């Protein structure tokens, strides 16, 4: 199935994607009601369940979030979490071969899955009248997977082609993967989610099934149901289909966060690249150490890079005219170190000199400190509040956000109080976040067209 690979070049913040992409209300900053009409419960077998009500249309989003991802793979078995995700569409003891996809199709469900470093997620969007069918099928493939060797081989070829198509056909991917590897060193977060081509080719049926039996169990999953239903209606159904699944002890190695102080630089020239890119990424502590400081960083990323009114764009694109785009992002949807990054695409009307480009980006970052005022902070908070109303439009939005937050160790309360948490951020805490950022381990990366080695401009 389609896999979403976290972009390495520009670590996206999920939160920002929601806040900027989907939502943009009212000036009432005092309103801090709970964002969603949601309820949580846990089955005896350990399956955590969240039900979010959205009664606009008779629709339901089911998402099952397994707490396992690419970082849990055995060394050298890169890509096995992702391959396994694909195999879950290939049949069980009770639903053979392509029947799963057939039944989903017949019931009008849009069915897909994705694998990230920390989670593997299976999801469907369908008419609410079909929910029992979705639950029966999803519960079944948690424990009854039955794959022929032929199907395994075919699917292994497919994920190999997927890597070629989605990653390698993008000429900037070697740069992105190298950057990731340098930043994360020997940590599994430094490896590509797809696995390397030679790893994919070497994946074995038995190993993949071991991975399945080890991690696919109700006590290692979170079920999110979002749409035209409520907990009272749906709980007995969840019990009926998921309740009978046996729990199994799951041991998941916690990845120790990186704490070394490292400052690195990467410069790479690649074929087919037409425009240089400059970025700087900062390795920050994990959420569990940062606590509510993550909201300060969240605001800082809005301030620096939340669109065309943010400070880096104002400075580098509008004022100094040295870039055609500039942005920032903060990825805290991870169980390990959170990563803050800033980036720009230089203006190549004039010849681009990498050292100067890096200097421009760094100076803009330092200058931004002076623009960080109570007024700007209040404005960012207003923007975030104003856009909360859109979170309850498409039911898929809530399912996705809640699933991510809970998977990364947040509680439903944290999601519900997101606006409150944002409003509680003070100017001092954003300034502190800024100072800590500048002291963090970092990596400066420049991507250049192959024709350009230094100081020459290849722009037409």
């Amino acid at each position, binding site marked *: 199935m389609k896999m979403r690979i976290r972009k390495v070049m520009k670590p996206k913040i999920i939160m920002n994607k929601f806040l900027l992409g989907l939502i*943009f*209300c*009212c*000036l009432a900053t005092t309103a801090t009601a709970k964002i969603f009409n949601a309820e949580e419960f846990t089955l005896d077998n350990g399956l955590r369940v969240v039900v979010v009500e959205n009664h*606009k*249309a*008779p*629709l339901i989003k089911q998402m099952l979030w397994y707490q396992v991802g690419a970082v849990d793979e055995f060394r050298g078995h890169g890509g096995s979490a992702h391959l396994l995700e694909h195999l879950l569409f290939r049949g069980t*003891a*009770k*639903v053979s071969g*392509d029947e799963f*996809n*057939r*039944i989903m*199709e*017949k019931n*009008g*469900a849009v069915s897909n899955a994705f694998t990230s470093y920390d989670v593997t997620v299976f999801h469907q*969007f*369908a*008419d*609410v*009248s*079909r*929910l*029992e*069918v979705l639950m*029966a*099928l999803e519960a079944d493939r948690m424990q009854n997977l039955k794959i022929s060797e032929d199907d395994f081989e*075919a699917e292994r*070829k*497919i994920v190999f*082609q997927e890597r*070629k*198509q*989605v990653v*390698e*056909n993008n*000429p900037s991917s070697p740069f992105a993967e190298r950057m990731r590897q340098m930043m994360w060193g020997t940590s599994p977060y430094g490896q590509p989610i797809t696995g390397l081509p030679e790893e994919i080719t070497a994946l074995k049926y038995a190993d993949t099934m071991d991975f399945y039996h080890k991690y696919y169990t109700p006590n290692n999953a979170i079920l999110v149901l979002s749409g035209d239903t409520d907990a009272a*209606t749906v709980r007995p*159904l969840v019990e009926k289909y998921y309740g009978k699944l046996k729990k199994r002890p799951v041991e998941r190695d916690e990845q120790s966060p990186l704490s070394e102080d490292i400052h690195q630089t990467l410069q790479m020239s690649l074929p*087919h*690249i037409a425009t240089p890119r400059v970025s700087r990424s900062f390795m920050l502590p994990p959420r569990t150490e940062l606590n509510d400081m993550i909201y300060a960083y969240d605001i800082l990323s809005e301030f620096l890079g939340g*669109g*065309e*009114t943010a400070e880096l764009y104002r400075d580098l*694109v*509008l004022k100094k005219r040295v870039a*055609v785009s500039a942005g920032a992002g903060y990825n805290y949807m991870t169980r390990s170190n959170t990563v803050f990054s800033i980036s720009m695409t230089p*203006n190549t*009307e004039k010849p681009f000199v990498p050292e100067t480009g890096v200097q421009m980006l760094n100076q803009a970052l330092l200058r931004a400190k002076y623009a960080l005022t109570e007024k700007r902070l209040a*404005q960012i908070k*207003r923007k975030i509040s*104003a*856009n909360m109303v859109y979170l*309850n*439009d*498409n*039911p898929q939005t809530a399912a996705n956000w809640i699933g991510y937050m809970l998977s990364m160790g947040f509680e439903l309360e944290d999601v519900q109080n997101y606006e409150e948490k944002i409003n509680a951020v003070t100017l001092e805490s954003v300034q502190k976040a800024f100072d800590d950022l500048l002291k963090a381990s970092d990596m400066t990366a420049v991507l250049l067209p192959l024709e350009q080695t230094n100081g020459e401009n290849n722009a037409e």
Partner: protein
Amino acid sequence: MQNKFAKYVLYALIVGIFGLFAWGIYRCHSRIDADRILARSILKDRTFASTVQQIEADGIKAYLLEEHSNPIIAVSFAFEKAGSAYEAENKQGLTLLLTDMLLNGAGEYDALQFKDISEEYGVQIGFSAGADDISGFLQMPTANKNMAIKLLTSVLYKPYFTYDYIGLTKNQMQTALRNQKERPNGILADKFAEIMFAGHPYARPAIGTAETINGLNRADLVSFMRTHFTKRNIIIGIAGDISADEAKQLIIDLFGRLPEQFEQERIAEVDLNTTGAVHYIAHDSPQTITRFVTKGTHRNSSDFYPLYLANYIFGDSGLNSKISKVVREKEGLTYGIYTYMTSKDTSALLSGGYSSTPENFEKAKELLLQEWQKMAQTGVSLSELQQAKNALIASHNLRFASIGGIAEMLVAMQQYDLGADFLEKRNDYVRAVTLDEVNAAAKKYFGNVPDFVIVGTKDSDK
């Protein structure tokens, strides 16, 4: 003796009944019977109130779908015959520049203020340029309707178009133009249009060329907007937390001051006759990528639904499609292969695409063409058609997931002339299609061999 015999019969019966019973239990537990689960489900169908009202204000018609559960309103609109195909030959990229420039300052607000205020009020405004139309989008929390009106009317009636921002935006377009050619799919999109639509305005790159972008100026923006943003070529869809009377007032407030005259002639229909030609563009990327195409049918033609179902079964139903089963699921030759229909103002196409490593590419193409030919010759089976109809009908409600999506759909319904009752009738349209109609359409359209545009490395070159 008789007694004994009766006993055996009885035993046999008991064993038989027990066996049947056990087999029944085994069947139940060894298979998942989705139809049975559905039939017994406590969750029942609910009809989404999809009544579309046709409203008119100030001589402007619009479709409205009221939905009051969440306090947001979405307005989608399109200016027809105002897309990139209507740019002058030497002004390519103009509509793209225009759609960007509309948000760079208007009325009381410079670009920064405009964007700040929009975000602070949760007002989303956006424009995009297609080949045929310029589309616009306005979404707001109900409480901020007045601010939304103020912002969009500033854009429509008092855009700044400052020289400063024009220079910046042109520069951004030049960068985007170069970046588009970094990836094989960017090259393919460009070459595909250039080759398949040669001589037609659709052949031009929407982003323009380095030279035409360079030549764009403020006067071009002003004049194109004056002649192409009018009451006569606007199509409007409104959805969400708003009544019919309020919607009418909103139309007057937003669009009432647009000019009345519109004189753009429609461009000529694309004449596409495919013969299986292969256009190969060498490029050293890990995968070779293709788009193939033949003649399709327009959205309002009587062939539409039959071909829609034929195409769905052949290549537009994800992993269940005929072509995906053969090329992807069975052989593992590609990550994805698909076909799709497009209906633009002056072209209707049946297209498709896939990408694979060079050593797989020709094999995949061979299998594709085999299946394509089979489709023309034998068509689809009744059970395939029934599965497709079930799927399309069961997924009908998914189109109502977001208010913004509904507003956009209301615009499309008017553009394709589907009628205000389309949403209520659509499932019947799907049901009514017969197997003969589908197979006649398959014969007619899959009977043409598609042309291929390919970007990548040939296996033999390696």
